[in-house]
């Protein structure tokens, strides 16, 4: 059997890649995809834990997380569409009205 640590490390690596993506990329769509990646990483961790602990809690929790992610994606994409209509851009560094 594959050791549990493998899954946990995989989840952690994907999560960190997602975080770095959120911080360094400028296109809103890409940032959004990175957030989805972070969610997936957490999902991997949850399922792995569920499997090794012989409990359905983690799997159940993942379903919830996926539902929320889907809803969030719908709302997020709608925001981007509107943002593009009004400002002709979805680059995060060009959208900085809310500052001092």
């Amino acid at each position, binding site marked *: 059997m594959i050791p549990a640590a493998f899954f946990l490390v995989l989840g952690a690596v994907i999560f960190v890649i997602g975080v770095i993506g959120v911080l360094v990329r400028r296109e809103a769509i890409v940032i959004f995809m990175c957030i989805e990646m972070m969610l997936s990483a957490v999902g991997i961790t949850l399922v792995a834990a569920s499997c090794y602990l012989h409990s359905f809690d983690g799997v159940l929790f993942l379903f919830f997380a996926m539902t929320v992610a889907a809803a969030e994606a719908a709302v997020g994409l709608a925001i981007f569409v509107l943002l593009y209509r009004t400002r002709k851009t979805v680059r995060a*560094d060009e959208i900085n009205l809310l*500052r*001092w």
Partner: protein
Amino acid sequence: MIDYVWLIPAFPAMGFLFNGLVGRWWRLRQGIVAWVACSALGLSFLFSILVFLELLKLSPEARVAIPDRVLFDWVVSGGLKTVIGYKVDPLSIVMALVVTGVSFFIHIYSVGYMHDDPGFTRYFSYLNLFVFMMLNLVLANNFLLMFVGWEGVGLCSYLLIGFWFERDAPANAGKKAFVVNRVGDFGFLLGLFLIFSHLGTLTFDEVFAKAHTLGPVTVTFITLLLFVGATGKSAQLPLYVWLPDAMEGPTPVSSLIHAATMVTAGVYMIARCHVLYEMAPVSMAVVATVGALTAIFAASMALVNTDFKRILAYSTISQLGYMFLAVGVGAFSAGIFHLMTHAFFKGLLFLGAGSVMHALAGELDIRRMGRLKEKMPITFWTFMMATLAIAGVPGFSGFFSKDEILWNAFSSPHGSLFLWIIGTVTAGMTAFYMFRLAFMAFFGRYRGSEEAWHHAHESPPIMTVPMVILAVLSVIGGYVGVPHVLGGGNHFHQFLAPVFGEVSQHLEKAHGAGGQEGSLELLLMLVSVAVAFIGIGKAYYFYIKEPSMPKRAAEALPGAYRVLFNKYYVDEIYQFLFVNSTKRLGTILWRQFDENVVDRTVNVVAAIMRVLGSGLRLLQTGFVQDYALGIIIGAVLLILFLM
């Protein structure tokens, strides 16, 4: 019947609530409002008489032993337990009778006088409220309820002086009365605090029963502080300045509040607290001296004044001085006796003034009056009755009460020749200025405009009937207290005697003594009567026989005349000393303290916050990813901390 004593103040309270709430919302007709207000007073008067008759049936000892009628607990806090309770004894019932009786007649008079005034309903609600408060003051069985009445009548006085608030003068006069009274009330309140802190109670009976435990210094302080309150409310030196200005109010108000009832509250209060005052000879001397000085001081200002109502106002101050002289020498029942007769004749004098104003379209300057006896005979005759009474002409009520005061000022252990001389001189001045007023207003030739003379008319019966009743009382009111030396029984004195206990007994003896004492009393009486007649004669000579005399007299003594005419410049001195210095202090505090200290502190705090904020706000870059970085750093730190 005595159980229902609480109804006496309850009727005016109901009248006030009905007229003040329903009458104003529904805009009831004047007739209804007047009926409600007057019948409330009428019932109140009726119940006072019933309680009085009940009291007469009891033996003199039982009259002062009636337990207080307690309605309910009012303030219960720690050691303080105060009730709403009323006290029935000869003193409080005499006061209740005077207050409700005079108020009743003046209410009726007001219906005619205030006819068609837009504030008719408001006027009668205030007037009923005033009577309610005044009855609380005189019937209360404890100092706190008395203080409520004390403040309540002050409030009504303020409201009614400034009744025509759309004009500046009444509004300012009301404010002045309120502020000056506040000074006195402050002293009164301090006196109450002292009583409570030393005796732990404010109920009259308990305070007086425990009074012997007080030290002489404490009791002197208490009585002097209470007297400060009395100088404010009863317009004595140095706080009398508000009363002449109070004449800006409607004339029946001047009659009721500023002559007959409210201003006598101080005299009543001292009589009520006679146990405390008897323990403090210094305070007694202060009260008597202030009273005597006020009497002569105010009378001198009335000599040259030309305003009908202000002459009467100074006369009121002067007569109140007499009452304080009486209670100051320990002649408490004489003080209350004069209070009662004064309520009759001074109330009537003001009603006469109102009647004259009514006839002459508000004219108040006696230099533009004259010969009015032809136009208004009833007003003239009633006014003359009151004038004779206040001048102390034998046979009229003022003679008996004033003479009893003068005799006590001389003979009482607290009295002295000095006080008697001041009192007698004042009596002469009183006779002079009152007859001057009467001669200038009702005799001689008319000095106003032709048109005003044409319109002058006698007042309607609703005004003249109360005047006639008060005139009758002014004449016969004194016969309840005819001194022994004139063969009378002095029933008034005997009725009040149980309240005032030993002192009164002592004076009773002095008063009833025959032989040498009696002849001395007769001699002094003759002197004061002679002085009064000299005053009247002088007034006759000055204002009827030789109309050029006043002018020549004024020119002969220009300095004295100017000082008197300008009322000793007391208003100006007070303006300079108190009002202006307070304003200056206020300006200094505003410029120096407020602007330099308070405002600067606030501004410095704000500036510090702004500097700090201007650094911190740089964090708000507007880049979503900066915030995300912040969240991640925070999360990492949190995890590190938890691990």
